[in-house]
């Protein structure tokens, strides 16, 4: 199993290094084979995924600018199932982080209220009864460092609350929602100061998507909504695997790591399609 995993990581790293010729078809074949082997041997995967705050912060470093229209719709949506509410909770948490990191505090408050409301719908009222968390969000008028502290506190208290209530499996759904929304926000940003950095972040999605799709598939207990989103994420990962991230500058002959506008547009459309399922 580890040999296959090593091959996958090796190929992923090779792609991200740039300047080396890679055969996409061979990579796809290896990855499919890796996933089959992985599924056979790992019924349960223990993964620590990055926090929502980290995802948004890192995309911001790649030049992600704030765009109000990119954020999730705030008007009432009928999130019927627990899964629907959970994935929306994750997505709105990403919007909250996005607004706070970009110092859009008025929007942040609206998204905070949305997250707060959904936490009640999900029976997680206890999460916001926490004094530490309330104090952090009451101080949202503060400086940048304080807003980041508030986000980190939300992440921390959510993890502790779910752990104490033995609801940790929900974290996966929250994270999936946050990840989809984070990818959407990044893909719709029109001003990207560092395309190479953005390309690296896009490539990183492959590994995370692979882990997410596997974890969701393992839990198909057996909710069709989970299966649907898991299939979508798997397809997106395959799309990323087929994408050529190497750009050749015709005038200088230089080959560099850079996603083409056409590929970026296709990925953007695919992410938008998946994301629209959360807020339909």
């Amino acid at each position, binding site marked *: 199993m580890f040999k296959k995993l090593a091959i996958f990581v090796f190929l992923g790293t090779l792609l991200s290094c740039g300047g080396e010729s890679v055969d996409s078809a061979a990579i796809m074949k290896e990855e499919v084979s890796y996933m089959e082997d992985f599924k056979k041997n790992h019924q349960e995967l223990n993964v*620590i995924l990055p*926090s929502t705050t*980290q995802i948004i*912060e890192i995309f911001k470093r790649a030049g992600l600018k704030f765009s109000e229209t990119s954020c999730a719709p705030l008007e009432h949506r009928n999130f019927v199932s627990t899964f629907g509410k959970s994935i929306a909770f994750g997505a709105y948490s990403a919007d909250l982080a996005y607004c706070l990191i970009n110092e859009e505090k008025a929007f942040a408050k609206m998204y905070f209220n949305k997250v707060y409301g959904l936490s009640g719908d999900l029976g997680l009222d206890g999460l916001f009864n926490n004094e530490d968390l309330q104090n952090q969000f009451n101080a949202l008028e503060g400086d940048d460092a304080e807003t*980041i502290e508030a986000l980190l506190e939300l992440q921390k208290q959510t993890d502790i609350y779910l752990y104490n209530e033995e609801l940790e499996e929900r974290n996966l759904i929250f994270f999936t929602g946050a990840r989809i929304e984070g990818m959407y926000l990044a893909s719709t940003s029109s001003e990207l100061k560092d395309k190479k950095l953005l390309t690296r972040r896009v490539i990183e999605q492959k590994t995370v998507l692979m882990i997410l799709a596997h974890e969701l598939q393992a839990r198909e207990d057996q909710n069709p909504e989970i299966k649907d989103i898991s299939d979508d994420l798997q397809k997106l990962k395959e799309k990323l695997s087929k994408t050529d991230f190497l750009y050749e500058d015709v005038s200088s002959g230089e080959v560099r790591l850079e996603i083409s506008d056409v590929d970026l547009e296709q990925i953007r459309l695919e992410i938008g399609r998946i994301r629209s399922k959360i807020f339909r």
Partner: protein
Amino acid sequence: MMSRRIIKILCLSVLILSFHSQNFAQEKCNLKTSIAESIKLIPDFTYSGSKTYRPETVNSSIEIIAFLFEGVESSIVFLKEFEDAIFEVNIYDKPANDVTKNILFSTDDIAFSGKELIFKSGKRRGLIYVNIVYKGLKYDSKSASCMSMVIGSKAY
């Protein structure tokens, strides 16, 4: 006389059972305390994620995968709930030019005998693998065995 004895036995059973259940309850790590202690240990540590491990038998193990972003200095703090539990921790990655494990840290030679252990990953990217093996108790005590792994970064 007989019924008094039965009542005594019943009371004693209830006491024993409640003691047992208290002990069992202790086996769940206190994640809140672990996170707070991790932040105390590394002052500029910002919380990213966590996992707790409750081994059921000696020599049982767990493999945890952590995803690290490029350019972010990460640290992992391992905290035992009870100091006399012995754990072995191995951290490794898979470099691009090799398919074998690249051990980054291992307590094979020096047992993880204190209460906490800190691993600083530096600005590493991609996946790292954390293998934790429960080796039993140092003393023949009744302590439960539980360990928290708290991951954080210096990203902000």
